[in-house]
């Protein structure tokens, strides 16, 4: 049974103020800094070779360079790149073994909208591999708390069916949830503190499904078309794969199914070859190339080309949100998207001088169309604190932040 939805955005002209949407797009294995960071601050900055694909959306993006993270040590240098990119834990507070993992920004924001959207958040990844070569620290940027990770979805078709299909229309299934949810409550009393937390994950998950069903009942309207057709599966070409995931985020925002999403371009450190269509005719192993780029000119050229390719996909997503009209403007005007990497330099594995590109105006909280270089030593977490504030999350501090970043 496909759900009925309103035409175009859920928010027409002259209606309620559209909510703020936030998307995080994570680049694995770092970037080539020389080809990425512009030099002239302000609105007249030059688009560098890597950022050149942003030209058509130049007025919508804010390039921010110079933000820093701290590598907390004690683990493989890649393990904290993605897993701690959005973490609310300061780098020296190690809540999950040697990793400073706590609830990530997307989940902190999602908690604000739990009662309002069908999906508190959406976690996607363009990782076509199911094999378990790497531990989960490399495969997800989204965490509910220490040790408790979101499971990003990698199949566009599954995402689509989850967003629009409904396997739980059957009222009996609601009764089932009642019974099992009671079971979880009773079970809890037989467990010690550490195990209660694990059952709480189950209980919270059931609650989340129940809330979703409540939302669906509240919002059922007459039959309407979904603005996107069902994907066939995982495309072999990187560009099609990434763009399809971008489309899904766009349509989920458009129909207010969720207000926060994360997408990984790929898992951190993974050594599998990928086909960057239109750029190379053979599959390339990005991670291995990043470690050859300081020694071999052709490896450096390849990594720069991959960076540019990834920025081009982001530009597509930005363009997509701009093309959806909403309220008095576009979906992009009411959103803020963040493109960033966990490493400043893919070979040197440094966590400072990170690349960040924002897109969107966030209802005026962001003034795009310029390049900002932050003062030396500004924490990345200052940006996160600002974004949290835009969603009315009341916090003085986020991870190791020293204050909000001025974006307007």
């Amino acid at each position, binding site marked *: 049974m496909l759900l009925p939805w309103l035409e175009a955005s859920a928010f027409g002209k002259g209606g309620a103020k559209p909510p703020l949407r936030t998307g995080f797009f994570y680049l694995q294995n770092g970037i080539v800094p020389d080809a990425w960071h512009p030099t002239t601050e302000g609105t007249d900055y030059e688009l560098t070779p890597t950022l050149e694909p942003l030209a058509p959306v130049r007025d919508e993006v804010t390039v921010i360079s110079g933000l820093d993270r701290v590598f907390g040590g004690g683990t493989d240098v890649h393990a904290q790149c993605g897993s701690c990119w959005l973490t609310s834990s300061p780098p020296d507070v190690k809540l999950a073994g040697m990793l400073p993992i706590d609830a990530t920004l997307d989940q902190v924001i999602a908690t604000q909208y739990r009662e309002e959207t069908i999906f508190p958040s959406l976690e996607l990844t363009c990782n076509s591999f*199911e094999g378990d*070569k790497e*531990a989960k620290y490399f495969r997800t940027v989204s965490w*509910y708390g220490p040790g408790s990770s979101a499971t990003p979805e990698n199949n566009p078709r599954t995402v689509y069916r989850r967003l629009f299909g409904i396997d739980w229309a059957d009222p009996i299934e609601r*009764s089932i949830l009642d019974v099992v949810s009671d079971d979880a409550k009773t079970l809890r009393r037989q*467990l010690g503190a550490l195990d209660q937390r*694990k059952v709480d994950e189950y209980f919270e998950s059931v609650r989340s499904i129940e809330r979703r069903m409540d939302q669906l009942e509240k919002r059922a309207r007459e039959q309407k078309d979904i603005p996107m057709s069902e994907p066939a599966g995982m495309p072999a070409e990187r560009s099609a794969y990434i763009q399809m995931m971008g489309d899904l985020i766009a349509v989920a925002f458009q129909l207010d199914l969720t207000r926060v999403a994360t997408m990984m371009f790929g898992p951190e450190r*993974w050594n599998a070859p990928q086909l960057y269509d239109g750029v190379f005719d053979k599959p390339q192993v990005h991670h291995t190339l990043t470690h050859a780029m300081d020694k071999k000119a052709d490896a450096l050229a390849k990594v720069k080309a991959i960076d540019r390719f990834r920025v081009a996909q982001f530009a597509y997503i930005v363009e997509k949100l701009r093309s959806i009209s909403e309220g008095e403007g576009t979906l992009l005007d009411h959103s803020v998207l963040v493109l960033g990497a966990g490493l400043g330099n893919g070979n040197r594995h440094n966590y400072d001088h990170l690349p960040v590109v924002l897109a969107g105006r966030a209802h005026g909280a962001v003034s795009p169309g310029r390049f900002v270089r932050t003062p030396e030593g500004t924490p990345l977490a200052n940006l996160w604190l600002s974004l949290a504030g835009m969603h009315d999350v009341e916090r003085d501090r986020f991870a190791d932040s020293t204050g909000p970043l001025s974006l307007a």
Partner: protein
Amino acid sequence: MPPSNAPQPSDAERVEFTAAVSDWLRSHRPDNPAEGHIYTRRLTRTEYSHTIRDLLGLPEDPFILPEQFARFTEYFQPETGEMGEMVDVAPWQGMNNPPLTRYPGIATLPADSRAEHGFANQSDQISLSPALLEKYLAVAAELLNHELFPADYPLFATPEADADHAARERLAEFLPRAFRRQVDEKEIDRYFGIFEKSRRAGNDFSKASRHMIIAALSSPHFLMRIEKTHAKRGGVRKLDGHEMASRLSYFLWASMPDAELLKAANDGRLEGRDGIEAQVRRMLVDRKIKAIPEHFGVPWMRLNELAAVIPDYEKFRAFYDLNGGVDTRRSAGLHMMVEALLLFETIFVENRGVVELVDTDFTYLNQYLAMVYGLEEECGAGLDPNAPDYERTLLRGYVTMARTWKRCKLNDRTRGGVLTLGSTLTLTSLPTRTSPIARGAWVADVIFNRPPPPPPAEVPSLEEQSLAAANPRTLRERLSQHRNDPNCSGCHNRIDPLGFALQNYNAIGQWREVESDSGLPVDASGKLADGSAFDGIVGFKDALRGQPDLLARAFVEQLMAYALGRELTAYDDPAVSDVLEQTREGGYRLQDLVVAIALSEPFGQTRTMPAVK
């Protein structure tokens, strides 16, 4: 410790010291309750697949997982205690593909990541998100509404008379099996309530029964592995019969207890060592014991990493040209995986000792691997090099290849054991050359269970070299910075020699006397951490054979971590020693190790602690 140039304690002093530490560990518990705790957690995808198969009586697992890459499993007959002279097996497809559902129309579950140096069943790493729970629930609904369970399936078939009573009876029989413990009337009532609600909503008997069972499969009592860990005052307690039954069945079979094991629990026969051992010995010769080679052996050998290595076609054509034509789907990699699996399974089924995993006198080969290793003359008899021996199967058109495997008696020790498997040697190499560091790290991790710490953040890459270089140096010479720079040597003096021992094998595991990118002869000499020197693989194997205790300890630590579903702590050291003590005389036979672990103290108890209101 102490440094090699300082005075050393005597053997007697070492023994006394170790015993004192061991005694202290035996009588103490960690202060932090999280240390060494086995968490309540959901069934892994693997466990779910096997449990569903057994609970619903399916002929096969609903999922085909990456580690179950061997199609045709009839060859696996643990009840005979032997692996045959000729084995009929072939791989499904490479491990870099998503798992298949065996029954079209049923969605798959995502993989559970391996812990950094552990197994996918490590309890503290297993979490549950709303999206993931939705998947488990959706799979249950899809399965039970699938044509696998037609209208006349016993659990759902409309009875002659007294439908409600029949439904409740069936539930009363089903629920204790599903929840892996005894259930009371109130619980049965609650789940029967779903049947009644469904009937009232207008559904027929079959549909309402399915709803009731879907509910049971959605319950945390089914989906999670539970031990009652609450106690006002924390401590340690012995497991009860049902908890022990579950631990045993998930250790040996990665699945739920069978009827006999459940009965043993109900009858109180799992309270003492004899009762437990009797069950374990029975389970060791059940076909379901394949779970140990698949879910322990395969990750233990790191076979899943083979998918990420694609040897350079130009340099290693032999890896691909298996039947006169090149097809990267039919590369030697798939065959190497089967060879590795057969090695582990044989040593397990034939109850051979742990040392044979490292040094043994046989392997299994098909005609392709015999060709890659250059063993056609030695082992080729009975394998026809010209027969393509593949067929297109009806099931989604998979090509199964070279099904005939022959047990090959090896004439020299350059082959035989996990170190010299094509899989080990290839997965530790780069596409164009070997990587002694990766190999050394593999040996340190897998064989010694002492994985090296992560490298520092800024490590310069190695300079590549070609044959045309003016002053060619061997790879070993080019890695000399590891030995000369004190920042590197601390770790690399331990890692590199283990990798250099294997330098006579190229990046696809073929024997070589000379390195191809320097033209210089291979230098495969080195020293183990205890000082024993070796030159080449045979010497290395001898050096390892000289330390059977060390090999056994490393293996037992890993098998115990798998059995418990948690990382071991220092406090588990005495238990590991006990296992070794009990199995030393028999030569650390693999099945005996399983029994000893099942009887060990950590396996038979759980930590309790107060609850949070």
